[in-house]
């Protein structure tokens, strides 16, 4: 019975996360196009071009980082890294204790 409650909590949380990220991505795309649309219209000339260029430069870089991380296999076991840092921290503390 207790386990069920926990599973429900996890289910609700993940539904929230996935719908949240979807919502954020859709609203971002909407905003991006609204900003880009002002360029040919010549409205407040200059502000949109700069923002779009800066965003694209950064986003392209991060897209490649994402791809690199994906191809490297980082997404096969996404939870692994969180255990590794705790092991490393334990080792560091041993060094600090001088053992």
């Amino acid at each position, binding site marked *: 019975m207790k386990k069920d409650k926990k599973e429900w909590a996890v289910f609700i949380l993940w539904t929230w996360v996935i719908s949240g990220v979807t919502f*954020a991505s859709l609203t971002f795309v*909407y*905003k991006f196009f*609204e900003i880009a649309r002002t360029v040919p219209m010549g409205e407040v000339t*200059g*502000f949109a071009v700069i923002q779009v260029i800066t965003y694209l430069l950064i986003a392209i870089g991060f897209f490649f980082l994402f791809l690199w991380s994906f191809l490297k296999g980082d997404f096969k076991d996404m939870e692994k890294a*969180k255990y590794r840092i*705790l092991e*490393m921290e334990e080792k560091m503390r041993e060094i*600090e204790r001088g053992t």
Partner: protein
Amino acid sequence: MNERQNPVNYNLVTAHIIAALIFLIMSITAGLLYSLQFLNHYPLQGIEFFSPGRVRMVHTNAVAYGWLLNGLLSGMYWAVPRTSGYPVLSRQLSWLIFWFLQILVLATAVGILGGYAQAIEFGETPIFVDPFITLGLFLLATNFIPPILKSSKDAPLYVSLWYFIGALVWIIMVYIMGNYIPQFFVPGAAGAAITGNYIHDFVGLLITPLGWGLMYFFVPTIIKKPIWSHTLSLMGFWGLAFFYPMQGIHHFMWSPVPMHVQYSAVVASIAIEVVVTSVLANFIMTLKGSGDYLRTNYPIRWFYTGMVFYWVTCFQCAIQSTLTAQKLIHFTDWVVAHAHLVMFGVFSFWLMGIITELWPRLTGKEWYSHSLNGWAYWLCTLGIILMFIDLTIGGVVQGFIWWGLNPFMDSIRFSVPFWFVRTLSGLMISGGIISLIYNLSMTAKNKNLIKPLIH
């Protein structure tokens, strides 16, 4: 002991903490002084070098670059080598960056007081200082990215390291965009719209990712329990990477920026809050079953209080980004309340937690007084809650008075009691900060050692 075994440079971490605290004192002194101007009791009246408008800029710049950046760097010089397993690129370069940063913050303060501020919010650093800051940011990336890349060959990167890469790369672009383009290439209304973007990117793509990156490191390592879901944390990071930029339009609502763009900025700002809630849920799930830490462990208490404040600011943000709320609160003290809650209540709280965690380990000494740690926490917490509520209500009152087209002086008369309470809350915060600093200095002098020192 070779560097591979203990890659952390303890002296450097300590130096950044000390520099951060010195600038924090400078900044709250400027904040308190400036708050007296609102009560018509500014003590340095008539001295051009200390004219209130300049002192305000010293307050905000010392906070952002002197306190927050130094503090965040101290955390990074601790966390990056420990999470990656490798030291930063070069010890010499680290010290060079350290001194460079302190000189630049001082040069900024002197430049601003001398009347050379650049007309860009959060970019008031005089234009002749800007190229050095850009160079400093390049050096910072050069120093931190190599250990992260090396560690990516050993295993998948931990989320903190992703956040650090993000911040180091973004800030270079953001700084160039915000400080040079409006000044030289796109002046006027368009330039102002870009500076709005710069303000938000500065806080959202530098301070926020560095702060969260450090939380993802310190919380699990202190409570000795992994973050509840690393997958969720990575989703938070990639969400920030792709969907957080270009938020700044919400700083200039009802401005010449085309209305259709403003509408899109409102929905995008609200959407971010949903994502933020899931980041917080991850930390709450991590603490589940270990809640006692909130009672017994000061760093964890600072961290989680900051996270609660983060949620409150973000909830407030969702409201303040709407066009309806903007009509009321723009230009009022509501925004100042938001800025203090997030810059002090969140990121400064996290830094104080980090400093509280690291100081005994860096000095190898036992705490001089645990009760002073308690005083620091409670004075800062109650002080910022008071300041936030006071300025938020004050902001709404100011907004309604203007909305009703009453004489401007009426809004000043009604604001004075709120400004008085702001100064009081500022004194409480200062008391908290001084308790912490006094405790740190007495701890450093303490004779009781906790463990052998390793340098």
